[in-house]
């Protein structure tokens, strides 16, 4: 098995050579900027490689296809979609050259893993991914709702990631403010030693400053719960994306089935009428008709009829599958949206309550300190 795998790679060399920025209109007709990667496949011999440009979402679709088609196989993972764990940047800039470079390496790695897998490397769609210039997963009539949903899920992901990042920085600074006040405790205590009437007041005020400095630990600990609630929805966006991708896959299969059927019907027509047309359908092996005998033609026609019937059945089934998917998915998405609105609103309210509690504690401590100062 291993040999077979490696022997494929001996014949096939894969490179994700470059990355480039593109702008264009997406399926909901909005202007967007994205990165494309140059996938080079060299089959040796012929020295000239097949090269084509693919963007990250196409890799995602390919992987989803593999997940669905080979559920018993451990499908290699893809590199990060967004620059999630960048330590020094506010936003996940997917167009940042360093990030793009690392992703390029990751994508190359993914393809190498797939092609070195004994089963996956033989998949027709994988082959098309490497060789077929057009976007193999493009749709003639994409469902706008799902595209919009994918967009929303991306935006939610961005918003929550940003929020979590900045919140962490705010918490850091707040920690600093509180803790430095603790120094007042020490110096007031030292100072009180040289004072007569002021001593007691200073000393007790110092203790309150210590209390103040210590209070931040609990406050920030509580805030972590809020962060957790946000994180849950961050992870949820991934699940939403996953549903969108599955929909795209089903849609794709539906369109392939329809295309398949259409081309078979055309073949039948040509066979029946004897007319030759130039085929320009993608993904189809075109046959050139030579001179045939009547029997040959008739037997081929019969086989084709059979195939067409099967194809029609398959298309009907695929259609039904697609419709059911859309219906049930959309019901669930509506439910999810309502749940999200409720949950996040609750989270915001509880955050506000936490803030109020922090303010009350602050007022308490400073009031106590003030009393001590008054007694000086």
């Amino acid at each position, binding site marked *: 098995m291993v040999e077979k795998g490696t022997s494929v790679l001996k014949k096939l060399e894969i490179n994700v050579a470059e990355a480039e920025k593109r702008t264009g209109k997406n399926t909901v007709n909005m202007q967007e900027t994205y990165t494309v990667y140059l996938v080079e496949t060299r089959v040796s011999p012929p020295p000239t490689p097949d090269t084509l440009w693919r963007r990250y979402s196409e890799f995602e679709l390919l992987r989803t296809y593999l997940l669905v088609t080979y559920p018993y196989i451990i499908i290699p993972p893809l590199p990060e979609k967004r620059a999630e764990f960048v330590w020094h940047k*506010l936003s996940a800039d997917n167009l940042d050259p360093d990030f793009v470079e690392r992703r390029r390496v990751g994508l190359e790695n993914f393809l190498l893993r797939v092609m070195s897998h004994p089963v996956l490397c033989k998949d027709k769609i994988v082959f098309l991914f490497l060789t077929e210039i057009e976007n193999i997963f493009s749709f003639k009539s994409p469902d706008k709702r799902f595209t919009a949903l994918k967009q*929303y899920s991306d*935006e*939610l992901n961005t*918003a*929550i990631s*940003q*929020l979590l990042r*900045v*919140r962490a*920085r*705010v918490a*850091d*600074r*707040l920690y*600093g*403010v509180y803790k*430095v*006040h603790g*120094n*007042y405790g020490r*110096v007031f205590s*030292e*100072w009180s030693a*040289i004072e007569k*009437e*002021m001593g007691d007041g200073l000393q007790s*005020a110092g203790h309150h400053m210590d209390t103040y400095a210590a209070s931040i630990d609990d406050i920030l600990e509580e805030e972590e719960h809020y962060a957790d609630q946000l994180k849950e929805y961050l992870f949820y966006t991934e699940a939403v994306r996953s549903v969108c991708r599955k929909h795209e896959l089903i849609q794709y299969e539906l369109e392939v089935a329809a295309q398949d059927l259409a081309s078979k019907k055309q073949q039948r027509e040509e066979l029946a009428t004897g007319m030759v047309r130039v085929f320009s359908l993608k993904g189809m092996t075109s046959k050139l008709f030579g001179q045939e005998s009547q029997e040959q033609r008739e037997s081929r026609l019969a086989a084709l009829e059979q195939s067409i019937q099967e194809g029609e059945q398959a298309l009907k089934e695929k259609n039904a599958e697609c419709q059911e998917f859309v219906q049930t998915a959309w019901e669930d998405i509506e439910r999810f949206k309502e749940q999200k*609105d409720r949950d*996040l*609103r609750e989270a*915001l*309210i509880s*955050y*506000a*309550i936490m*803030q*109020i509690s922090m*303010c*009350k504690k*602050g*007022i308490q401590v*400073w*009031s106590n*300190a*003030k009393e001590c*100062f*008054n007694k*000086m």
Partner: protein
Amino acid sequence: MSVGAQRGLASSGQKHIAEILHPLSAADESLSPGPDVTVTAGGDKEAGLSNGTPVDTPSPASASSLFNRLQLDDDIESDPRDYYDSTETRDLFVTVDDPKKHVSTMETYITYRVSTKTTRIEFDLPEYCVRRRYQDFDWLRIKLEDSQPTHLIPPLPEKFVMKGVVDRFSEEFVGTRMKALDKFLKRVADHPVLSFNPHLNAFLSAKDLNKRQGLALLTKVGESVKHVTGGYKLRARPPEFCAMGEYLDTFSQKLGTIDRIAQRILKEQSEHLTELRDYGAVYSNWTGSEGELQRPLEGVASSVSTCCGAMDELCENMGQDFLPVLREYMLYIESMKNVLKKRDQSQAEYEGRLEAALLRKQEDRTPMPPEVERCQDKVECFNADLKADWERWQSNKRQDFKQLLGGMADKNINYYEKCQAAWESLINVLQDKQTEDQTSETD
């Protein structure tokens, strides 16, 4: 110029430049209420209202408001522990306020209004209102130091300011300086000896401070101390003054630490504020992709923004009120240390002369020279004055720090109260919406 504390910095922009007269000449600095701004131009040098000559019939509004203003400044609770703090015996009230910018061909500078109210007979009139600039305060301080060398003279705020670094005419800088000048003058006015100094009298009342001619009313002690020659070394500082010295050293150390802590807090708070602003913006941006959640998110953004404003205020206060007062106290401590040194000097001189005189007496039976006795007087005078000043300084220090630290606590309380209100109003809005939704669902 209207009556009533004008807190803002009124630059010459309020009046047309041509209308501005030299502040120390006949400007209409009357106490009568009237239309604002217009100055009676022209040579009203003799008649009517000139600096230092208050209105003959002060209108009730002005006099009482002046009095009220002065009273409020002295609003300290009488504490039985504070011997020097009985406001009932006070008969001299001073205030520094109303900064104004003056632009002349030679220079631009700020003057402050110095208002006095007194029942003392040393003053010709019960009320005065003059304009003085920093130079004038400096003059006063030097004169006080010269004429009362055995006393602790309160410090002035820093004289020199790097022109490129600090804006000498910014509201902030002028405000801080004015408060310090006010403090300085009040401390002098409260002092049982300094407040009777004729230079102070001139400062408060004279139309024109003629600084070049010194008032020839130096005390005897003043004269003799002025001529102290150096070169005498003190053998032993009496224990009570040692204790003072030690206290001052430790105290200034602690104040230095507090200053550093306060600065650090200020820095952390500023950085916190920066992050907080970004934080609010993120919530605002999020609303773009939301529907139902738009309102709660905007609400949070708005509450965060309110907190930013409150924090900004807190930082400003620390920078403008807390830190300058702290620093000024450090200057005060230095002044006190200097007075201690001067005292040491005079004691050293006395002991030196005494020793020399005793030796000569032994040799040729000459009587004790009068300088030695004078020195002795001087030392005793110094010691007594210093001890009295020390007690008073300690007492004032207590009050000052009570106020300073209490003020800091107050500002922090204000900050938290504002934040709390912002978040509470958000909850009200959100919970109202919830009940709204619930009732609409049941309909």
